[in-house]
Structures are given as C-alpha cells and as structure tokens.
C-alpha cells in the first residue's frame, strides 16, 4: 500500500515540477511550488520522516510561499516570454542527470535494513539515545545534543538571513498614525482570525515544548508563532501589527536567541566540559541533557520567530510603501 501511495505522490510531484517550467503566470507558479512542497511533506510522512514533514510544511510551504507572494506583489505577476536559447541549459541538465543516474547504479537498495547507513552510526542513536538522553524523540536527541553544533550553525544561518534581509529592505517604522489597512472589510475573516490566532500561538508553544516527545521543536514552533502574527498583520494591517510586536523588539529577540544557544554551550565551558556538553548542567547527566535541550530549543524558537517575522515585516513594509506611493 505504501508503495502505491509513494508512486502516486511522486507522479504528482513530477507533473507539478514540469508545469512550473511552462507556465508564465508567476502567481500560479508560486502556488504550484506550494503544492510541490506539501506533496513532498506527504512523501516525507510516508518515508517515516515526521519531523521533516512538519518542518517542510511549515517552512517550505508556509514561509517560502508567503515571501514569494510578497515579492510578486512588488515585481509583477507575469513572466515575459524570452528569446533565450534553451539548448545549452538542456544539455547541461542532461549531462548532470546522466551523471546522477550513473551514480544511482551502485546505490544500496531502497529500504534495506542492512544498508551501511543503517548499520554504522545510526544504531547508537536508535538503541542508546532514549537511555543516554532520556527523550523518546530520537530526532530531537540527535538534533539538539549529538549534533547540536549543526543546529547552532542553523540558528546562525537564520540570524544571517534576517541580517541580510534587514540590510537590503530595512524594517518599517512603528507607525504612529495607526492606518487601519488590511482586510478589515472582510467581516468573516476578522472574526475567524480573532478566534484562531490565540489558538495558533498556543499550538506553537505546545510544539516548542512537546518536541522532545513527538514531532516538533524550536524551528517549527518559531515558524508557527510567526505565522500567527503574519495572519494578524494580513487581516488587521501592518501598522497595527507593528504596535503589537515592534520591529526593534524583533531585532533584539533574534540576537538574543543565538546568544541563549551559544551561551548554553559557553556555560558548559565554564563548568570544565567541552562546548555544548549538557551533561554537566545538572548533577545527573540525563537531567543535564534535558536542561540543555530545553534551553537551546528555546533559543532556536526565539530566533526563528523573530527572524521570520522581521523578514515578513521587511517585505510587507516595502509593499506598504509602494501602495502609499
């Protein structure tokens, strides 16, 4: 049964991807990309990668699509047909594709439990991490503890992206005149949004702290919390949203999250252990791991929330400026 689902999903992905090449209406293209992202999230679920599916759906289909639509609002919806030659790109793609197919010929069989990837480093994560770290979610154990340095790098990437977008587009000023813009004429949207937004924030907090026991964690939580405020900004207007969460505060929060994460690692240094070694944070190593993981996931969640929201503010601020002009 899973194979049939797999095949159907892959076929839909292929059709979606191919249609992106030929369609000239960019709004449709972005929507197709959102569909592509959701379908790949479904494939991830099928392949047992639930945390990844969660992240792909919220980050890939959620934030990426929002930012692309925000860009389209400023750059225009239609792609102009070009007279660019397609022979060279097609050639490059065929050569690259052929090289990849050549590479797949020696690949280990799909799904085989005797593959090198399943035999070497992974067994310790699967068999020992519930005991060593004390968490059921092995992905969180690996992400936050064994390979916590990667996740610190990832948080730095999010911070770097926020810095990049801030330097390119700048943040909107906190507006004193409180222009009521947004979709305020749509009564249904206003009422439903008012009911749903607190629930979304609550869900974000749940995902943040429940990530140790089920799919979830700092990244997904940060994105969902940002989504709640993006919805608020869309329905009630950017200027109202900037009063609720001022842009200056977001800058500070983004920086603070990275500092919390790196700071946890530095605390370990002062306690005479290696960087990011959480076992020394409490008298019992497993309790220390729990404390460390909660602290860094908090840092991740804060930075991701602040970064995603400030990136949205930057794009929305540009759109407002254009509308006013």
């Amino acid at each position, binding site marked *: 049964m899973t194979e049939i689902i797999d095949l159907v999903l892959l076929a839909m992905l*292929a059709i979606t*991807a*191919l249609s*992106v090449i030929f369609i000239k209406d*960019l709004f449709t*293209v972005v929507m197709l*990309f959102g569909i*592509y992202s959701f379908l*790949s999230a479904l494939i*991830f679920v099928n*392949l*047992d*990668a639930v*945390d*990844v599916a969660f992240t*792909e759906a919220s980050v890939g289909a959620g*934030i*990426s699509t929002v*930012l*692309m639509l925000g860009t389209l609002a*400023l*750059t*225009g919806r239609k*792609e*102009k047909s070009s007279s*660019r030659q397609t022979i060279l*790109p097609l050639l*490059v*793609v*065929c050569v690259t*594709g052929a090289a*990849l*197919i050549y590479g*797949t010929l020696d690949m280990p069989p*799909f*799904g*085989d*439990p005797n593959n090198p*990837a*399943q035999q070497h480093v992974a067994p310790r*994560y*699967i068999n020992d991490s*519930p005991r060593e770290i004390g968490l059921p979610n*092995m*992905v969180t*154990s*690996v992400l936050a503890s064994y*390979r916590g340095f*990667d*996740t610190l790098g990832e948080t730095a*990437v*999010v911070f*770097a*992206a926020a810095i*990049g*977008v801030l330097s*390119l*587009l700048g943040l909107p000023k906190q507006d004193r005149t409180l222009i009521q813009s947004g979709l305020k004429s749509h009564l249904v949207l206003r009422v439903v949004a008012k009911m749903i937004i607190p629930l979304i924030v609550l869900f974000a907090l749940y995902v943040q702290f429940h990530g140790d026991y*089920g799919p979830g964690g700092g990244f997904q939580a940060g994105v969902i919390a940002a989504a709640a405020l993006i919805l608020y900004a869309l329905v009630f207007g950017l200027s109202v949203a900037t009063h609720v969460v001022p842009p200056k505060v977001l800058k500070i929060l983004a920086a603070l999250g990275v500092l919390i994460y790196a700071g946890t690692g530095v605390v370990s240094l002062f306690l005479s252990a290696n960087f990011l070694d959480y076992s020394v944070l409490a008298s019992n190593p497993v309790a220390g791991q729990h404390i460390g993981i909660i602290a860094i996931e908090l840092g991740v969640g804060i930075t991701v929330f602040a970064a995603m929201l400030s990136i949205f503010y930057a794009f929305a601020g*540009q759109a407002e400026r254009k509308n006013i002009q």
Partner: protein
Amino acid sequence: MNFIVEHYNYWVVVFLMMVGFYIVISANNLVKKIVGLNVFQTSVFMMYISIGKVTGGSAPIAAEGITTYSNPLPHVLILTAIVVGVATTAVGLALIVRIKRAYGTVEENEFEHKEELI
C-alpha cells in the same frame, strides 16, 4: 526487475532534481529562478530521506511495542538543510525586490543590456 524496484525511488528523485535545476539555469525571470532553486533543493532532501527509510520501520520516536525504526540521522540533516534553503530564498527574494526598484525589471535579459557587461 528487482533492481528497478530497489532503485526507482532514486530515479524519480533524480528526475525531479533535474527539472528544478533546469528551471534555475534557464529561467529568465528571477523569481522563477528562486522557485526552481527551491524545487531542486527539495528534491535533494527527498533523496536523503530515502536513504534513511527502513522497510517496515516506523518514525524514529521511541514507543512501546515498536522494534524497527527508520534512521533518524538523515532527518536531522534535512531539518537543517530545509532551514538553510529558506534562509537563502529569503535573501534572494529581498535582492529581487531591490533589483526591481533599481532596474525596473526582474527579467535577466533586460538588465544584461542595460548595464555594461563585465
């Protein structure tokens, strides 16, 4: 026949990768380039997750009664890669907004003529 069953997953993913790659290098519109880049990267993620799948396994969350788990390591790697991907997309899109403001267009062949080619 067995070989095809064992490898078709990878081949479809390679096809998707190449579609994305083609969009990136052949699109004239900058926004479409970024869309293609995302399609390319998402397909690479699917390749990684396919590596970790164990037939008959379940999600890597320890639970009573489950003996086989899929490999959590590729999941961790791809979580990181997804976030890196969206970060790059955000910066790329911000650049596109500025380019539109500066050049008035986001079609690549139009500003290749507007500026001196280096």
